[in-house]
């Protein structure tokens, strides 16, 4: 939340802590271990992941825009 407060101070809100904790939890579970290369959720579920979650994630608190349907080709 410090990163968001430094970069986008006008929208910083401390009451968003559940979203920050939830985001941190998901990142922790999906990030592969530096030594074994296996993510925690892979060990828990006995499955393998292609780390698409990591490639698609964004910095927490960054501005997001909704694409209006009339602009979708």
């Amino acid at each position, binding site marked *: 939340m410090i990163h*968001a407060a430094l970069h986008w101070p006008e929208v910083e809100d401390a*009451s968003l*802590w559940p979203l920050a904790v939830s985001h941190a939890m998901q*990142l922790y579970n999906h990030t592969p271990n*530096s030594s074994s290369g296996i993510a925690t959720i892979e060990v828990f579920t006995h499955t393998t992941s292609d780390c698409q979650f990591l490639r698609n994630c964004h910095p927490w608190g960054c501005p997001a825009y909704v694409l209006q349907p009339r602009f979708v080709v």
Partner: protein
Amino acid sequence: MAFARQEAPHSWLQSQLPSSNYIVLQGRGRSHSQGSLKRAYPSNQNLTPTQKIWQCWHFKLGHITYSHIQKLALGGFLDRVSMGLLRTKIAGHPKCSACQFGKQTRLPDETTTTIKREGHLGSLKEGQLKPGDRVFCDQLESRVRGRLLHTAGRKLDKDRFCGATIFVDAASGYIHVEFQVTLNATDSINALDSFERSSLHMGVAVNSYYTDNGIFKSKRFVHEIMKNSQSIRYSGVGSKWQNGVSEEPSPSLRLMPAPL
């Protein structure tokens, strides 16, 4: 691009951060903070393209260490562009002001001495080789009421999140957090049910729990555990280190929400 030293507009951070540690970069650039003020260390003014990619992944992955990002790039977990990180030296990583501030911890009071006995390290997780064999539980409480995940933020304060229950699997280290409006037995049982449903969805059945005292020792909670043919074990009174796995699930999860 014009560089100008300015005061931090955020009042709380303004009082906390020493002004010599950051500068404000104003200008047009294709950074992820385009159109807004960007704070960085003076050494971050002229980053190489590789260092920018490195920093970008650092922000994206919840401020994990730069060496960890290098290893992920080496393993091919990140995109092809990040493969350039393999040629960089770890000493040349850019500084992150959020991390510098977020990793600050309270100084020891120098009145208590903690000695880790090598023979007992990891004894709580010993023998737990299958996911679901033992799950550690603990609760956290926040003074700031948190926004609900499904509303537009117009709820009354009493209907907002005041804490959460953390579940940590001993075998895998998997962490699950259930947010609660109150920390009473009813909400804790609901959190337990929600965790078990999500675990069963992933093919894991929970056999036993290891918790500290408090709401986990209430009659209704114990009855719920017994009804599901599970077992529960408590840490000693005042012995919070016996539930250390969920007290401090991981330094990364403990520190991650701060610099995010």
